[in-house]
Each structure stands twice: as C-alpha cells, then as structure tokens.
C-alpha cells in the first residue's frame, strides 16, 4: 500500500467546484412543474428544495445519465 498523501484541490479546481455548485445548487428554482434535468436524468421539482452535488453531478451524470 503506497502513501499517496492528502489530495487538495488546486485553485482552478476549487473555482470550478464553486461554479458547478452555483449552477446546479443555486439560482432561482421556479415553482410548479418545472423539470430540472441534467445529463438526461429527469428530476421533477415539486416545490421542495432539491439539493444536488456539484462537480460530482456534472461529471457523473454527464457520463452515466444518458
């Protein structure tokens, strides 16, 4: 087993995480039957606070959601 040491996000990675978080977790969420769908995965918003992970969502659903 190798000691790879801790992994810390670089500045650019952290900025990307910040951006992804804002795109996917923030912004206006319209009430009613607006569908939030990223990467082909349909998520129906029904007036609840729908919390998605950020970069993991962008990467994971992009590759696995089609």
């Amino acid at each position, binding site marked *: 087993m190798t000691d790879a040491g801790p992994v810390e996000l670089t500045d650019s990675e952290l900025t990307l*995480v910040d951006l992804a978080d*804002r795109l996917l977790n923030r*912004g*206006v969420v319209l009430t009613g039957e607006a569908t*939030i*769908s990223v990467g*082909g995965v349909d998520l129906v918003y029904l007036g609840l606070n729908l919390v998605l992970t950020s970069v993991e969502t962008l990467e994971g659903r992009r590759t696995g959601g089609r």
Partner: protein
Amino acid sequence: MSSLIAHAVSAARPAPDLAGLRGLPLRAVALEDLLLWATAWPDADRALTRADALRHHEIVAKLCLEETCLPIRFGTWIEGEEAARSRLRADGAALRAALARVRGRRELAAGAPTAAPRRGGRAYLEARRAGLAAADARRRSAEEAALRLRDGLSVEQADARHEICPSDRVALSMSLLVPVERAQALKDAAVRVASGLPGVRAVVSGPWPPYTFVVGR
C-alpha cells in the same frame, strides 16, 4: 412547440447579441414587467453536457452585465412560452423582490479546499485515527475564515452566506453580495484577508452573477 431551457429572469430588456445554448435562439418571454430568458430547444433529447452548463453561465453572466438578472438553476426545462408565463405569474412577487435585492450588486466567492487523504495509504490511516479531532479543527478554521472575510470586507450579515465543509474536498464555501462599483476593490481586499488566514488556503473568485442571493433564507 419548442421546449425552453431557462437561463435568467430580468425586469428590463438587456440588449446583448447573444445566442442560446449550442447556437440555438435565445428567447425572451415577457409577462408584465418580467422577462424570462431561455434557449428554444427543438429536440426531445435533453442530455445536457458540461459545455452546456458553461455556456449557460456565460449567458447569465452577459445578461447580468447589461441588466439586473436572476440566474435560474441550470437544467430548468419549461414546456413552451405559455408555461413560462405561468411560472412568471406564479412567482412574480418573489422574483420582483429578488431583483430589487440584487440590483446593482454582484457576488464574490471564497472557497477553501480541505486536504482529503487518498483512500488507503498511511496518510489515510492516520487521518482516520485523528478522526473527529481533525475534522473539528478543520471546521473551526473554516468558521474563523468566514468570519474574518465577512468582517474584513465590512459585509452585512444578511449579505454573507457560508457553508462549512459542504463536501470532503471543500472546507469553506462562502458568498458575499457586494455593490458592483466596489466589487473589484472588495475582491482585492478579500484576497488580502485570505492570504493571512490561519489554517486554511482560501481562493477568492468573481464577481459572479448573484446565484446565491436570489432567494431569501
């Protein structure tokens, strides 16, 4: 009838020469004093990509440069213009209040990464043994960083939001709502504050459109 993928709401018509996602037309659906900006999407295939997310952000950022805008959460689909007007009607009061709140303001972001040990290896085992003590120290450092950033920029409590350790890779995620005419100076000040924070390495970015402050909390 095309579906719409929504980008932002504004109270007046900016005059950007902008296309929507993938070069598709950008539409402005009007209801009274509100405009909903959206890409007219012709296909049944709604598999959005990372490039679409980044283009959504570009559209929102350019609209916000021209006029006060509220970013809409990426990936919001609306079935046509009548449905869009229905949403504007239903949410009109909240949208107008949010526009008033963010008018003339931008969002700065400050984030701090955490050192997440790789799975396996001596560092991971040590971290597991350190366990709660290390996590608690990380939280305290991040909380202190948030307070120093907010106080260092003299931002009102209502205009500062932060999360401590929202994931195992991020110790601090912070947003500050600041006047647009002072955004760059405050960003420079935030960078100076961040450089002196004990126990965290904070990265300041922005100004962004006001993603975090479009709803009250």
